[in-house]
């Protein structure tokens, strides 16, 4: 990976866990477990469910966009004046699970616009990173 060019648009955190996808899925989708590692919440694993994550510094407004049990979960994340989308991907490995979190900052007004915007931003930041490199 090339760490020299700044990733302006997307935050990605990945980690390998020695736990089965089923268990990690529970930690990502059960409110009392979510609270133990992320924030207080009223999460329900249902498409288009709107929920809030309550931090010490304020609330994050979220809506479930995609849900595929034990494989992927995606929700909007609106906080501090910026709309973004958080996507979790679970991939089974020999030792457990590879967990990937990607947060992309832009406004997904609708699905089609979401993909359009994603394409546009990718292209834009790709070009920009070449300039800044």
């Amino acid at each position, binding site marked *: 990976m090339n760490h020299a060019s700044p990733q302006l648009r997307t935050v990605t955190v990945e980690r390998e*866990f020695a736990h089965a996808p089923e268990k990690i899925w529970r930690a990502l989708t059960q409110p009392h477990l979510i609270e133990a590692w992320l924030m207080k919440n009223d999460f329900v694993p249902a498409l288009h469910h709107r929920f809030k994550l309550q931090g010490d510094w304020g609330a994050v407004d979220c809506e479930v966009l995609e849900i595929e049990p034990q494989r992927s979960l995606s929700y909007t994340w609106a906080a501090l004046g910026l709309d973004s989308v958080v996507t979790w991907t679970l991939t089974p490995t020999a030792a457990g699970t590879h967990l990937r979190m990607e947060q992309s900052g832009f406004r997904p007004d609708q699905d089609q616009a979401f993909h359009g915007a994603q394409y546009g931003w990718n292209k*834009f930041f790709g070009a920009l990173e070449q300039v800044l490199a």
Partner: protein
Amino acid sequence: MDQSPDLIFRTLADPTRRSLFERLCREGEQTVGALTAEAGISQPAVSKHLGILKEAGLVKDRPEGRQTHYSAQLKALGPLVDWTQQMARFWESRFDDLDDLLKRMDQ
């Protein structure tokens, strides 16, 4: 200058503005005329987009005779870099807590 990532994202969300800004990043200072020649939209439309980019602090204008030259202000992208760095730190620390929780769930 108090620029929020929100303003910068909103300003650059328009594909035409983004492509004008991208061109200024890539090719350096340009006149409105030169930008219009390749933009495929009218000069007033280009000027309007440049005005919005300027309000967001993303471009700077420099009048010279009858021409106005525009250049990209990469410093204005700072809030975006700050945002990604802050969120990266936030998630790394949340992953640590998730790891702790998963270990507790074993017991």
